[in-house]
């Protein structure tokens, strides 16, 4: 996927005196992590194909502070939050979409108390709204009939009660959507939340992502669908650990839709 995509920035919009329909908050994983960058690009392609007028902050974006806050560093979190809010308020941002449930949760729930009030959507919710408005078409394409199981990200599901948007999109792909024994509000964490992504786990008898991958493998899937760059990493590692990477793909919902259409 080594091709440049056209991504306008807020600064460019501002220079032209225009306002985009929505700000795409890319997030740190989406900007820097090689795997997550593919998700970012897939989502951008869908935005383009749906003719969504969007922009990113680009170099003006900074970590939302989520991992700092969950680690207990409220000070660093608020510094990040206040800085980001100043930038977004200066651009008079009204609506934000992000492909990361951690950014989503933080922007939506924790920024208002610090002066950042935006309508925040997870990319699966946003894509679902495009679908409902008839701006996005989702077709099965090459995934038609494949067996897919969706792993609920904690910060999308339990934390914010978004369970149906990603599933509605997947169903549109004409795939065989199968549920793990623990799903929706009972979904098991991938093991990355609460800043665990950035540290070694405490001593135990298993890694959380292996436990969760086993849940997924029980459903005999062709594809494990995710809605979070960190879950994606954890599940991909889990599948590799089980030596199933040749038969099972871990893909973001946005990638599935974009790839189905060969965008």
């Amino acid at each position, binding site marked *: 996927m*080594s091709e*440049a995509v056209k991504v306008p*920035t807020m600064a460019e919009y501002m220079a032209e005196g225009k306002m985009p329909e929505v700000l795409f908050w*890319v997030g*740190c994983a989406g*900007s*820097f992590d090689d795997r997550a960058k593919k998700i*970012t*690009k897939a989502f951008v392609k869908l935005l383009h194909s749906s003719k969504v007028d969007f922009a*990113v902050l*680009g*170099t003006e*974006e*900074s*970590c939302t*502070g989520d*991992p*700092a806050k*969950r*680690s*207990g*560093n*409220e*000070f660093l979190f*608020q*510094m990040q939050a*206040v*800085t980001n809010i100043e930038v977004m308020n200066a651009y008079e941002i009204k609506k934000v979409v992000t492909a990361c449930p951690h950014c989503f*949760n933080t922007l939506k*729930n924790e920024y208002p*108390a*610090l002066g950042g009030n935006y309508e925040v959507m997870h990319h699966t919710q946003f894509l679902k709204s495009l679908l409902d408005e008839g701006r996005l078409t989702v077709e099965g394409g090459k995934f038609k009939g494949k067996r897919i199981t969706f792993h609920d990200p*904690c*910060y999308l599901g*339990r*934390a*914010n*009660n978004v369970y149906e948007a990603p599933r509605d999109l997947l169903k549109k792909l004409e795939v065989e959507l199968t549920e793990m024994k623990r799903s929706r509000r009972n979904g*098991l*964490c991938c*093991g*990355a*939340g*609460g*800043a*665990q*992504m*950035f*540290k*070694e*786990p*405490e*001593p*135990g*008898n*298993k*890694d*959380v992502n*292996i*436990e969760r991958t086993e849940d997924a493998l029980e459903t005999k899937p062709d594809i494990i669908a995710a809605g979070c760059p960190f879950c994606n990493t954890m599940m991909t590692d889990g599948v590799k650990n089980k030596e199933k990477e040749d038969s099972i793909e871990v893909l973001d919902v946005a990638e599935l839709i974009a790839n189905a259409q060969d965008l």
Partner: protein
Amino acid sequence: MQYIPNIIFVIILIAGIGYFAKNVRKLIRNIKLGKDVDRTDNKKERFNNMARIALGQSKMVRRPIAGILHIIVYLGFIIINIEVLEIIIDGIFGTHRIFAFLGGLYDFLIGSFEVLALLVLVSVFIFWIRRNVINIRRFKTLKGWPKNDGNIILYFEVVLMTLFLTMNAADLQLQNLGADHYVKAGAYPISQFISPLFDGISEGSLILLERGAWWMHIIGILIFLNYLYFSKHLHILLAFPNTYYGDLNPKGQMDNLEAVTNEVMLMMDPNADPFAAPAGDEPEGEPEKFGASDVTDLNWVQLLNSYTCTECGRCTSECPANQTGKKLSPRKIMMDTRDRLQEVGDNIDKNGSFVDDGKQLLNDYITTEELWACTSCNACVEACPVSISPLSIILDMRRYLVMEQSAAPSDLNNMMSNIENNGAPWPFNQMDRLNWSQE
């Protein structure tokens, strides 16, 4: 002389309720050792939560077997307490079955109490099997006092229900004998099968049996009431305020530390004078402590949570860290918080005010290894049938470790300094944030 039983009854009643009231006052004082947090908003939603979750047991039935059995015992507990009202009136005034005038309704009430009593006995028996025979991990992992506590409560139930049915069985015999005082009243769908056991017993002995069971039943109830304060069983009362005062925000939203906001806003304000003396009316004192190292650093809702916890272990059985063999157990977080709070309360009782005992919640009860194993996934919060949040305590203790002690694991310190220096948890330059679009 004929009033002696009435007088004894009133003395026992006052002593039983009085001692309980004394302990409830201690309980409230201990809970108020916590920091203030405002939960006076959205009264309607709070009331609905209480009605749905505590009164309606909505989260209990997510595990159907335990849930339905629990509802039977809960209904039995609430409904059979109508009978206690009659017992109290009879006890004070020396009457017998004062509500008998209700006629058909009385028959219906007594009849349903009996059916419930039997159902409670059956449920309690199954509970006991689940706790002691079947290998259910969340019960198996309880040792010592918490394990005994759970069983003692079940034995209490068995004794009280058996006494209730025995009392009725003897009463029925006496009614059939036409004994003085024993009016024909009530329906006895269960105790009619116990009653034949007492065939041929003299009227005097039957009265002794009936009175004995009656007295032991009411004294048993008073003992059970007072046992609550010392056991995990306070949830039968505290589930109601606990669900009322629960957090209404989305589960992913963690509270904003206002003390930090003030500092941050000052730093960000270009007009702030860094050398300004504090405003004159501000009292010089200890600077605000960030996070929690002891129970008094937690807020009163978190402390109420700890007294409400009945150690069912649903949180721990859903916890991803616990399931993969880490030390963290959300149930233990709640039990430790309560044990420490009780210790602080006892210290105050003994010394008049708290005297430093060289202990705190952190390290002496909850280790950092437990705290750092949490993925903040909210599975424990979702699992709790009475709206307890172990996660909020974990977060407050992490805040203390990081902001007061700089004691985060080194990997996390790297992550945090990356965010501080280059706006991402990894060491990438902020100026490279848009490079992905060109790759």
